[in-house]
């Protein structure tokens, strides 16, 4: 299911001609609505749910609903991007919550010490 930008959170990257989601989308699908200045996916059918825009949004305004093969509506997968980790929260259609913390960068300092 294609990404949806929450209009209360999206600020159109402050009226920029090219917001971050538009810049990062590998399929060049995200764009700004000319009137509302909010981001939207212009070809929902072409989106392959890579979630790049969802991770990149500086205001965490974009949400991606899971494909029905993975979870029925309203199943969701929401990232929380840190400096060297991404925390994924998966909420399935029954409201069950699972969380995964993925290290994206491992620094040598992480090993010892409690």
């Amino acid at each position, binding site marked *: 299911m294609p990404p949806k930008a*929450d209009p*209360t*959170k999206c600020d159109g*990257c*402050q*009226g*920029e001609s090219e*917001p*971050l989601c538009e*810049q*990062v989308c590998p399929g060049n699908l995200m764009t700004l609505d000319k009137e509302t*200045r909010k981001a939207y996916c212009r070809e929902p059918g072409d989106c392959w749910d890579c979630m790049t825009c969802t991770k*990149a*949004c*500086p*205001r*965490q*305004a974009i*949400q991606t609903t899971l494909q029905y093969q993975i979870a029925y509506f309203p199943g*969701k997968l*929401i990232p*929380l*991007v*840190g*400096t*060297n*980790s991404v*925390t994924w*929260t998966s*909420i399935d259609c029954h409201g069950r*919550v699972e*969380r995964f*913390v993925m290290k994206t960068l491992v620094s040598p*300092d992480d090993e*010892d*010490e*409690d």
Partner: protein
Amino acid sequence: MAINIGIFICGCKGAVSGAIDMAGVEAGLTRVKKKIGAKIFHPWLCGPEGVSLLGDSIARHKLDCVIIAGCPETVHRDLFKRVAADSGLPPEMVIRLDIREGCALPHGSDPRGATQKAVNLIKMWNGQARLAEPYKPFYEDGNKDVLIVGGGLAGLSASLELAGAGLNVVLIEKEPFLGGRTAQLNKVYPRMCDARCGVTFLINRLRENTRVKIFNLTEIAGLKGSAGRFEADLISRSNFIDAESCTGCGKCAEACPVLVADDFNFGLADRKAVYSPWSPDPAGPYIIDRAACLSGCDRCVAVCPAGAVNLRAEPIHNVARIGSIIIATGWKPFAAEKIERLGFGRYGNVITNLQLERMMSPDGPAGGKLYCPDGGEPGSVLFVQCVGSRDVNYQSWCSAVCCAASLKQAIDIKTLYPNVRVYVLYIDIRVTGEYEDLYSRAQEAGVVFVRTSPAEIMPEPGGRGLLVTGEDTLMGRTFKVRADLVVLATGMQPAGVPGVIKEYIEGTDRGKGEGQLYSCGLMSQWGFFTGHKQCFPFEAMAQGIYPAGACQEPMDMGNTVRSALGAACKVLSTAGERLELSPFVPVVDKAGCDKCKRCMEECPYGVWYFDEGGYPVPDPLYCKTCLLCVGACPRQCISTQGFSVHKLAGAVTAKVKETGPGEPHVVAFVCENDAYQAVLLAARMGLEYPAGLHVVPVRCTGSCNMVLLREGLPGGIDGFMVAGCRSGECHYILGADRTEERLDNIKITLRDIMIEPERVIFTRLGVRDAEKFVREAREFVHKLKEIGPSPFKKHV
């Protein structure tokens, strides 16, 4: 990066070691080994023995970074920096950690919690210290080009100062003459010297300075760029008579069929459409007011023996590339005809104070003689104060100069015409400071003062005078007085900021909302460009644009010159040679930047521009180092030598332990200017708050990147408190507001991922809000206990 860190823990002669179990701290730190060169406990580190131990240890263990856990940074700052410098360590590699006010004092009744908190804080600071590096000095040459909008007293004074300091000044004036309102005045109080004298002096000095370019009849039509690299589009109207070839014979004026009111004399006299300006430094011997011309008339062209008249001259466009702009647009008089009961415009003998200035000026319409415009010489003159001013129906402010100006005029009339009776009708005589002397002088000269705001001014039945009625509020009775000439002391109104500059400052051209200048209090509700009166009196939001003179607020000539020098000083601060840059100037890591321009948008000061590669760069000279950009960058690629997201992330991700069973672990980012002072004050006042709250001072809450929360919450931190300044008190204008907005956003995300949004709170603390801080901290920790531990805790 620091690879050999020394941790020094000071007992502070019992102030720390009394509440914190030093052996417990040592035990807690046993597994902190990596990149640690020394862990040293000392009961009194700032004493002579402690100081020499510190110096020796740095040398012996070859430490490249030192964490001193003890008193807050403001205490013994110089001492520890000197000791470090003596041992060859740069001062910025001495990292201070406050475990006295920050840990021992506020947790006196919870020694176990305090001990664990001290361990936690040391680990957090160790996480930051690992990324510390000595500062590399950077230098930049200042910007020496400045545009001054307005050639009145403020503009001229600022120009002369700046040109004298070696800057290239472009001075524009929309009128055909320099000197502004001052050129129209007669005498200057309190010395009763000639207003024209000082202006002429300034103009002559400027004209002989090759660094100053003066454009008359010129306005600013466009403004692009940013501080340090403005591009101003200047439009110069023509005066339609070539000043070089004009001989000043005056035949054109004789031939001109148009007669209009002379605005230089405030309508006291008439002039032709072709006229010779009666002013210092005119644009030419004769100029044509094309707006007054009859259509198709070209009599002046026909009679000019020199062929100097060119009615088809087009305006000239110039582009000025400048670094800074001073706005000295000044003021305009209140339109007295708005108050009908005072009869201005209806009765010829009711004039304004500015008309009286022109009347009394030797170059005025009557050669400096006092007269009634309806004919004859006045036997009595009556001044009405506060015309329009201090009146909610017209302009609510006090215009600050009218009392002194009327007293000056009254003294002047009494000196020149001792037999003329002079009355002053006033609400309050507001002559402040030394100007009180004017009041005494006027009283001694025989001026009669009546405390009233006149009800009506009417023509005297059957006579030539005017009857003024009102209520004498001191005597408590009505009065009626006859006067030949009534002078209305009209107040000052701001002339306003040129539209393009206002748009630029507000960012309306960049799609931002209007009215931000007003909401931030930098522009008063009445249109004066006040700036922040105490902290940043000469600043607009956009850096590089500074107001000066009466456009700031009503002020007299003395204050105008002072204000101009203040604004000039702001320009000079970015105009020096080889200026050393602050280590807090942000640097963009181009490898990480994807040119999203959020830094540019969030910068409250508009100091960012695009470099040749299209990457955003701040102008380091104009940057105020608030680091809102560091907090805004979605890719965390903006950092500074002294402060970075990664250092704070090092603190947030440090592996810490609960300060007590079931105690929530809270990290509080507090603004170092205001909120942190409240935290310190709370400790000094003996107030206690839960030990689980770990305070991390930051430059401005706006510099807190939300990634820290996104990193910290999954890392097992139970809650985040962010404490910014009180509304409207942020030193960086928007820092606290931007943070509140960001936190509101992250709360929605937290709610979406089924984490309680209450785990993040934003609070506003003034510099002395110690009790509020403690109350909020207790409530927050209590709330977190109710919610329970972070769902991420089991994952760690």
